[in-house]
C-alpha cells in the first residue's frame, strides 16, 4: 500500500525521526539555529488598547469614557511611555507576570499608518504588511511573502493554527498548513489516503484553481502524515483554555517541542468589536487572550524553546465611548511582544497624548508603524530581513526592543 507520499518533505521526515524523543529534548537543526520561530497573533475586530493598557490618571481619558472602560484597578506597569500611572487590565494576570518577568514588552500608539476605520481594509493592510490598499492583491500576505523571500520550507514551516481557513497573511501559494484543531487533522484510513494521493496526483485541468487544488490537497496529505507521527499520544498540558487561540497556540507548542519545523505561525482571536456593552464583554476577552498567551509561554519555555510572538489588532478604538457603553472604530493601538530575547518589562514608542488636539480626529495617533516592530523582530531574531519586505516603511527612530 503506497502510504509514503511522493513528495514527502524534508522537514516532515526530520520531524518523524525526532518524534520518539521525550518532550523537552532538543536538537539543533543545521542552518536553522539562528532563526527563531516568529508567531503573529491578529486580534480581529479592533481591540480597545486603551481599555487594556492605559495611563489611568490621564484627565482626558477620564473625561472621555466611563471608569469601567479604563483599567484603573489593574496591574501597575513600570516603564510606561509617560510619567503617568500606567496600568494593565485586571483580567490579564498572566500578561502582568510576563511583563514583570521581563519577557513581555508593550508598544503603544502603534498601528498601520493609513487613514481608514474599516475593519476589512485595515485587516487587509495588517495582513499584507502594506499601507496602500491598491497594492495588497499584488503583494499578497506578508508572512507568505517573507517565507518565499527567505526560502522558508518544510511541512509546518508556515502554519495558521486554530483557524479554519487560510488567512490572507499567509496566502495560498506557500504551502501553509491551516489547522483548526488537532483532533480533526487526519484522514479516516490508509486506503483513503492512498485514494487521495492517486486522485490528486496531477491537476484535472490547466485552470489555476484546479492547479492550486492539487497543490493544497497534496500539502494536506503530507501534513496529515507528518502530524500523525507527532500527535499520536500527545497530551496538551493543563492551563490552556477551550478557545480557538488556545487551540492554535497549543498546537504551536506541540510542533515546537517536537522540533517539527514551525517557523512562521498565524493565530487569531476575534472578539473585540465592542460597539456595545464593552464593560461586560471586554474583561472576558482579555482573560481569554491573557490565559492563552500565558499557557503557551509556560509550555514552550519549560521545554527550552525560543520563540518571538507578536500581537496586534487592525486598529484601536475611539478614545471617547459611545452611547451604548461601547467604543467605535479608532486608530492607534497597543502591540504586545513576547520573547525570551526582548527587552521586556517596559514600553516602547512615543506617546502622542489624549487631549483632543493631540488625537487623530478623536482617535489615538499612530506614532509607530506596526511593521517596524515586525521588522525589528525579524532582523534581530531571524537575521534575514529582505529589502522592501514592507513597502514604504521608513524608520525614523529604532525601537531597539531586542537584545
Amino acid at each position, binding site marked *: 500500500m503506497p502510504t509514503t507520499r511522493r513528495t514527502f518533505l524534508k522537514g516532515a521526515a526530520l520531524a518523524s525521526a525526532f518524534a520518539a524523543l521525550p518532550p523537552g529534548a532538543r536538537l539543533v537543526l543545521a542552518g536553522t539555529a539562528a532563526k527563531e520561530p516568529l508567531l503573529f497573533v491578529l486580534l480581529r*475586530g479592533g481591540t480597545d488598547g486603551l481599555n487594556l493598557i492605559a495611563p489611568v490618571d490621564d484627565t482626558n481619558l477620564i473625561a472621555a469614557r466611563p471608569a469601567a472602560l479604563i483599567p484603573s484597578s489593574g496591574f501597575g506597569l513600570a516603564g510606561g511611555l509617560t510619567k503617568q500611572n500606567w496600568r494593565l487590565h485586571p483580567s490579564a494576570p498572566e500578561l502582568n507576570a510576563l511583563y514583570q518577568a521581563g519577557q513581555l514588552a508593550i508598544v503603544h500608539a502603534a498601528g498601520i499608518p493609513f*487613514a*481608514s*476605520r*474599516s*475593519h*476589512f*481594509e485595515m485587516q487587509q493592510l495588517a495582513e499584507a504588511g502594506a499601507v496602500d490598499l491598491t497594492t495588497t492583491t499584488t503583494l499578497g500576505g506578508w508572512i507568505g511573502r517573507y517565507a518565499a523571500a527567505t526560502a522558508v520550507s518544510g511541512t509546518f514551516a508556515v502554519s*495558521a493554527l486554530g*483557524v*479554519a*481557513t*487560510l488567512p490572507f497573511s499567509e*496566502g*495560498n501559494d506557500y504551502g501553509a*498548513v*491551516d*489547522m*483548526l484543531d488537532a483532533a*480533526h*487533522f*487526519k*484522514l479516516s*484510513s490508509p*486506503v*483513503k489516503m*492512498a*485514494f*487521495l494521493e*492517486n*486522485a*490528486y*496526483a*496531477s*491537476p*484535472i*485541468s490547466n*485552470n489555476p*484553481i*484546479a492547479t*492550486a*487544488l*492539487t497543490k*493544497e*490537497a497534496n500539502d*494536506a496529505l503530507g*501534513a*496529515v502524515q507528518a502530524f500523525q507521527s507527532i500527535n499520536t499520544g500527545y497530551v496538551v498540558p493543563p492551563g490552556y483554555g477551550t478557545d480557538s487561540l488556545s487551540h492554535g497556540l497549543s498546537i504551536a507548542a506541540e510542533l515546537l517541542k517536537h522540533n517539527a519545523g514551525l517557523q512562521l505561525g498565524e493565530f487569531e482571536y*476575534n472578539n473585540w*468589536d465592542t*460597539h*456595545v456593552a464593552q464593560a461586560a464583554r471586554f474583561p472576558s476577552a482579555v482573560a481569554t487572550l491573557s490565559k492563552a498567551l500565558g499557557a503557551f509561554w509556560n509550555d514552550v519555555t519549560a521545554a527550552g524553546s525560543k520563540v518571538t510572538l507578536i500581537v496586534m489588532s487592525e486598529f484601536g478604538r475611539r478614545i471617547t465611548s*459611545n*452611547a*451604548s457603553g*461601547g467604543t*467605535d*472604530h479608532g486608530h492607534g493601538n497597543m502591540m504586545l511582544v513576547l520573547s525570551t530575547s526582548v527587552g521586556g518589562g517596559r514600553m516602547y514608542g512615543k506617546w502622542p497624548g489624549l487631549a483632543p488636539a493631540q488625537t*487623530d*480626529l478623536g482617535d489615538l495617533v499612530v506614532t509607530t508603524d506596526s511593521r517596524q516592530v515586525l521588522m525589528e523582530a525579524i532582523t534581530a531574531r531571524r537575521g534575514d530581513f529582505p529589502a522592501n519586505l514592507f513597502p514604504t516603511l521608513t524608520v525614523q527612530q529604532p525601537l531597539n526592543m531586542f537584545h
Partner: protein
Amino acid sequence: MTLPSASLACERLTFGPIGRDPTAPNNNNIGQWLMAQLAAPSTDAPQVTQALAAVRLEFVDVDANGKPLPPQMLPLTYIGANESTLWTAMKSAGSDFPKQVRPAQEIQAASYIRAALSPYQIFEMMVELWHCHFNIQATANGTVAASYPAFDQVIRANALGNFHTLLVAVAQCAPMMYYLNQVQSTGAHPNENFAREVMELHTLGASHYLGLTTPPNLVGTGYSDQDVQQAAQILAGWTIDQTNGSFIFRAAIHNNTAKTFLGHTIPSSGINEGVTMLSILASHPATASMVATNLYRRLVADTPPAKSAVISAMAGTYLQYLTAPNQIALMLHQLFSSAEFAASSGAKFKTPFEFLMSLLRVVNVTINPTAALNSMLAQMGDPRYNWGPPNGRPDISPPWLGNGSLLNRWAAAEELLWPTTGILVLQTPWNGLFDLLMHDPGMPLNLTHSAQAVARAIANMLPGGATAATTNALLAYAASPQVLGSSAILADPTKLRIGLGLLIAAVAATPEFQFRG
C-alpha cells in the same frame, strides 16, 4: 444574447445536479428554464413545505440551574413566524439561552432543506448570496438569534426583487438592528457600526471609501468618515419597538438638524432623513456596480475583470430599473445570457456549504437536517449563517483551498454518508443515488463487482466525467476490502450500505466534484 449550455446552468445555477433528474434543463429548453427560474415565487414550493413540516429538530432545554434537560424532537415552528410572535417567544424565554437561540437554529436547519429540495434553485442561490451580502451572525446574541427568522423572511421576500426594497427592509429588521448596534444609537451618543457598514458592505463598497474626510473634488463619489458620522446622526432614532420587535422611529433621540451626506443636504425631517439616505445609497452608481460585481463574483468567477462588459451592462440595468419589482431578476437574466457566463466553465470552486448541498442533492434521499451539518460547516470554516464579522464569508476560492478546510471537506463527506450519522434517511428498498448504484437504468438489481458501482457513481455524480487518474483511483479504492472489494460485502446489506457510502464520499472528494460546472 448567448444562452449557456444546460450542463453549465445545471451545475452553476443550482446547488448541484441530481443523477437522472427529469426536471433538469436541457439544451432545448434552457431559455424557458431560466425564465421560469427567474420568475420563482418567494414562497416555498409544496415539496419543500412538506419536507419542512416533517423535520423534527433536536431541542435541549436547560433547567433553572442551567443543567441540560432530556432532548426533545420538535417541529420547526418559528421559520415563518412574524416579528411579534418571535418577540413574544423571546420575552417568554427570559434568560433561557436554548429557547432564545432556537429560532436561529430552525432557520439553519430549514436552509439545508430549501437549498437541497427547492425546484427554484436560482432563487435559493440568491437567498444564499443575500444572506452573505447582508451578513448577520445568527447566534451573535440571544436577541439576534430569537429574531433571526425575520431577517431570513426579508431576504426570501426580495431575493429576485428590488435591491432598494431589500436594503430598507434589512435595515429595519430587528436582527440587523441588534447585530450592528443601530438599536442602541442616539443623536447625542451615536453608534456608528451600522452607519459605516451600510455603506462599506451593503451599498457603495469599500472601494468607494474616501478616508477620514472627503476631498473637495470627490464629493458625491464615495463616503468618508464625515459621511459615516452624518449617517449615524441621520439614522439616530431608527430602532426597535420593545413591545413587539417591529421597526420604530423615536423622534426623541434624533437631532433635528440638517445633515450633509455624500454632498447632498438633507433637511431636518425625522425618519425621512434615513429614508432619503438609503435612497441616495440605493440609487448611487457605486451601489449598482457593487451589486453587479457581487453577482458576477458569485456566479461567474472569483476575480471580475477590470472592464467587464456584462458587469457594466448589469450596473446599467440596475440603474435603469431602479424601482422595478424584478430589478435583480433582470440583472441575472443579463448575466446568464452573457458570453462571459457561457465561457466560465471551471471558474468557481464550491464553498463548503455548496459542497455539502451538492452532496445532499446528488444522494437524493430524505434529509434529516441535524446540527451535525452545522458542525461540519464550522470545521470547514463556513459556519452556517454564523460568520462573525459583518463582511460575510469570502466569495472566492483561496480560503476553501487551505489544507485544513480540504481535510474537513473530505471528512464531512464520509461523516454524512456514514449510516449512523442520521442525516440521510434511506428507504427500503434503497432509493436515490443508492438505488442508481445498484443497477443500470431500467435493468434489475445487479451489483456483482465494485467496478460497476464506480462506473455508476461517476455517471451520476460527475456529469462532466472523470479523468483517467480519478477513475483509476476510485476503482482501486472501491476494490479494497474495506470498501466494496469482496463478495461478502456485496451480499451483506449492512456492509454494502457502508461500502457504497464510502464510495460516494470518495467521489465527493475527487477534484472533479469540487467545481460548480
